[in-house]
């Protein structure tokens, strides 16, 4: 393990970098609102407690100076553009501040007919990394491949030189993959046993935009709703399967989970499978058909035994 990296706080990486980005965001937001190109800007503002941040929706040029970018800007704001958030979409064209990982979610939403590229103005931030829930640097950031978002309307900030981080999550996944099925089963059983079915993971996911979740249906009931082992297992399998090939890896589910279930491990595993089987990586281009919605003669059939 790289101990230096372990102890490194994100603010210590480059405090000035975040400040520069904050300035640039404010400038871009002000410009967009002043020119009337957009009706609102979705970004982050400082939280009430020192060193925290929270989502903000700014509608006047005067308010833009409250927008910030700091290691606390963890939220994936793409969530605020899904159709479920009607009050925001109804305003008209929206500008949105995104990190690379958040942009992947936006691209996915465009592919799923939830969003039109023409309806949004994307302010991309070059992100050196954000904080994790208990770690100084979020696990996803340790193996981030999209520090610089591609395809934004305007990109702010420059990437400082980053130290080499050990990919903690991939290592954990490799450990799981090396287990026997029985061991793996008990690993997940243990984690899912804690689940209280608060559905925070669902509410925070930009891809869980269904008007009515199938897990809330009771006629017929597909998934048991009380937090008991069978229903918990079913819920998490449904969640992982529904996100296969779509999840952009923002890891918001894991961050929002009050019971510390390592949900992004599942997401990462599904993404890995999709890449190995179909060469598909979610969130890099607007695709009309993902690999799971398409049938090809040469599709892998080896799972049929």
């Amino acid at each position, binding site marked *: 393990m790289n101990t230096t990296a372990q102890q490194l706080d994100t603010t210590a990486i480059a405090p000035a970098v975040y400040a520069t980005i904050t300035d640039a965001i404010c400038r871009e937001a002000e410009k967009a609102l002043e020119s009337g190109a957009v009706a609102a800007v979705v970004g982050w503002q400082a939280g009430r407690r020192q060193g925290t941040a929270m989502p903000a929706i700014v509608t006047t040029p005067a308010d833009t100076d409250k927008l910030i970018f700091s290691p606390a800007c963890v939220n994936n704001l793409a969530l605020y553009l899904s*159709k479920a958030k009607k009050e925001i979409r109804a305003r008209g064209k929206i500008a949105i501040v995104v990190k690379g990982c958040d942009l992947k979610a936006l691209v996915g939403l465009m592919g*799923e*007919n*939830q969003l039109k590229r023409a309806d949004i103005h994307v302010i991309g931030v070059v992100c050196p990394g954000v904080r994790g829930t208990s770690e100084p640097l979020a696990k996803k950031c340790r193996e981030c491949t999209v520090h610089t978002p591609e395809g934004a309307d305007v990109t702010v900030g420059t990437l400082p030189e980053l130290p080499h981080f050990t990919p903690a999550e991939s290592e954990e996944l490799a450990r799981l993959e090396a287990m026997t099925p029985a061991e793996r089963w008990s690993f997940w059983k243990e984690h899912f046993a804690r689940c209280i079915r608060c559905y925070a993971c669902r509410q925070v996911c930009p891809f869980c*935009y*269904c*008007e*009515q*979740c*199938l897990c809330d*249906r009771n*006629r*017929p*009931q*597909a998934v048991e709703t009380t937090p008991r082992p069978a229903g918990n297992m079913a819920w998490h399998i449904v969640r992982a399967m*529904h996100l296969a090939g779509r999840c952009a890896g923002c890891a918001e589910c894991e961050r929002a989970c009050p019971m510390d279930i390592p949900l992004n491990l599942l997401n990462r595993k599904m993404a890995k499978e999709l890449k190995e089987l179909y060469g598909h990586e979610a969130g890099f281009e607007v695709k*009309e*058909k*993902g690999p799971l*919605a*398409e*049938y090809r*003669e040469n599709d892998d059939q080896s799972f049929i035994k």
Partner: protein
Amino acid sequence: MSRIGVFVCHCGENISRTVDVERVAAEAARLPGVAYATDYKYMCSDPGQNLLKNAVTEHRLDGIVVAACSPRMHEKTFRNAAKSAGLNPFLCEMANIREHCSWVHEDRDEATAKASDIVAMMVARVKKDKRLVPITVPVTKRSLVIGGGIAGIQAALDIADAGHQVVLVEREPSIGGHMAQLSETFPTLDCSQCIMTPKMVDVANHPNITLHTYSEIEAVDGYIGNFQITVRKKARSVIEEKCTGCGVCSAKCPQKKIPNTFDKNLGTRPAIYVPFPQAVPNTPVIDRANCTWFKTGKCGVCQKVCGPGAINYEQEDQLIVEPVGAIVVATGFELYSITEKPKGSPIKGYGEFGHGTIPDVIDGLTFERLASASGPTGGKILRPSDGKEPKQVVFVQCVGSRAREKGISYCSKICCMYTAKHTMLYKHKIHDGQAYVFFMDARTPGKSYDEFWRRAVEEEEAVYIRGMVSRLYQKGDKVVVMGSDISVGVQVEIEADLVVLATAVQPRAGADTLAQKLGISYDSYHFYSEAHAKLKPVECATAGIYLAGACQGPKDIPDTVSQASAAAAKVMTLFAKDELEREPIVAKVNEKNCVACLYCKKVCPYGAVEEKEIRDRQGNLIRVVAYVNPGVCGGCGTCQASCPSKSVELDGYTDEQIMAMIEAL
């Protein structure tokens, strides 16, 4: 509370041999909601159906489960019976306790328990069945025929004669197919072109036939009664309307050394050509790959000599959309080639026959061109290597066919007869020549077929040797044939002047690609599959698409023509109605829940899903949802499986019904 009737069929002994039908009926009677249950020897018989009808009235039934065979067999029978008793036919379901139970099990107790479970599941499903009304869709009374060989020609003529419009699409520059390449035909030895060309002329002149030659199917959309076909009309470089077919362009073309594929590359042709003298249409086409103008930009002789100014080098492929109601697929066959096969191909080549490198080893179709009056030798049988008259000819049957070790296990059906014909044609032209035939066994079932073969053996003195050939090799100007005569158990070696191989009949290359466009199924060899081997031999499993000729399996001319007429009859049956009634088992979208992620649209194999805008009274867009066009929906349920929020469901197979069935287990 439901009042379901359960009728358990013995199916003679088919079911009752393994399943205690009385016990199944007795157990069904105890199920909640079942008002009446009985068993009967033959439910599909008239008395059986009457039993059902009477029970509906007598017991005021509001749902029916017939526990019998597969719904593929008798669902229609019982739904009609239910309908005549005043019940909505879609409240009648079948529990398959024959194919799914009695035929596959031996233990009587276990089979009976399983049959009861199947019945209980279907009772649970029927309780949640909705009253459905059949969907009617209009029929476009216009047909597409793909392939202009004898199959396609016959089907097109029959449909056109019945008064319907036909679009005939042919890949080559002329219609005629393989039959136009043959010299004489068995078992009567009449000239192939003499009997075929009148039909070709009929096609050319028929007011109801639109002919697209040098064209291919680009895309197929729609469904029975309402297909949209996109035809790619390849650039001929000759304007058909202006061309008079005088032939000066071909005569003056300086590029004359192009192998003539119609003559199996024995002769040559110019770069602007008609494939054969009787071609329909008699309009030449420029072979752009070999034309000097297209290769170097210099020449232009044909354009200079063309009186009507019909040559257009700038012509481009045209895409034409043809609306049709039915499709006849008649794409024919090609012959197996003994050359080395590319890696990965399941069919192997014949290294022991020289992999096709010995010039005097030819296939049956090449022999036809040698024997044909319109062929490269003017009907003289001369061998390809040095143009000498062959005095000893060896014919080898079953090359590729019936050879599992080579990858093809089927019989090509026509080779026994055409080889017998070849020996005769040979004897008639070269009186002092000797024909030998290596054969496994002669398969000649057909009217006057065996007599024909006997004539070849007994009167025309072809020597038939029962056995296979192990090796062919060149020795001087001879081809040595090493084989065995298993009837006497000796090895045979013949020094032949010419060897003719009856190579296997295979589907056209690219048959699978076309099948995927059409959405029809094919077997491992890529022959197209009929819906039922015996009872639906010309229908595809995809409604509105029919098969004719060798694309479905090896066939001779009489069989091909019969099947083509049968396919035409099926098309006419379809066209006899103005509207088509379709089963209302279609998907419906719950617009309240749909978020229009359109996964359903992405996965729908029928293209039935559209976007629908929901607007308020002022016309403001409220939201977009998915919409399933019931006329196009094939009822497969793929959308239902893919919908993340379960907002689309198939009538008759709703999640509620499936869950109820599982719970009834």
